[in-house]
């Protein structure tokens, strides 16, 4: 597949910058051990979780952030992926690609 590099650079530039949440250790534990593996399609074993490492409030905060911020970031990334799939190939005059 030939890729329009200019368009790729432009779309990547529009991708939201990753900002590490300024939260406590409990939230970050829930983020790293629940949100990230789930979104990456990895299996999460609850038996391997340390239930002392986070609080129920941390889970609620994560839920609020998921609905308020992550969801819109994920939707934006999905629309970038969709746009990339529709990217027009370069003309045949550029044979080295």
């Amino acid at each position, binding site marked *: 597949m030939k890729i329009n590099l200019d368009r790729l650079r432009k779309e990547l530039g529009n991708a939201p910058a990753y900002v590490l949440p300024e939260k406590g250790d409990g939230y970050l534990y829930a983020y790293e051990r629940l*949100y990230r593996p*789930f979104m990456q399609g990895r299996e999460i*074993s*609850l038996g391997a979780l340390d239930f002392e490492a986070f609080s129920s409030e941390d889970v609620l905060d994560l839920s609020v952030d998921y609905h308020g911020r992550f969801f819109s970031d994920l939707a934006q990334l999905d629309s970038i992926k969709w746009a990339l799939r529709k990217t027009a190939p370069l003309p045949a005059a550029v044979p080295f690609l």
Partner: protein
Amino acid sequence: MNFEEFLNIIYLLKLLYEVEPKVFRKTVDLGDMCFEQDDGYYYDSLYEMALEISDSLFAYAWSEYYDRRGMSITVFSDPLIEEYYRLAGEYGKAKGIAEADNLYFTQAEEEMRRNFNFSYSMDWLLKGYAEPKRPYQSRFALFIYEDGYVDICGVTVGLVRTYQFFRENVQEMREMLSRKEETAA
């Protein structure tokens, strides 16, 4: 399973772990619980776990299903709930406040609304008595109608939060009334 469903389960387990760790250890078997995005999860075992938690939290739990009406009624009571209303009655008497104006009576109603007003297919009723005439007279009931979907996780979270509310407020009222007695003495 989507992330929201997954997080609801985590929240229920963590809340139970914080509020009543004995019930957590008795009813939750984490060893078999593995979750993955877009994977079917074990709804039956989750449903059973939620029912077991619901039955184990309060000292009295009675349930009946009415086929003709398409609804189930579950009644819960506990010495904590009885104590809550007994202390609320003492507080009301000390302040010369009628039950209708007693903030502890209204706070309990508000807590029930907060915990169980999330589905059109579920109703609830709370009855509190400052001077009960029989055991478990202070109680609440949940009415679940089969015409719609009621999230069992949501109901169980509501029950855990309700239990936590009564327990924390009983402690608070005991301390407050004991301070009043010390001041009066």
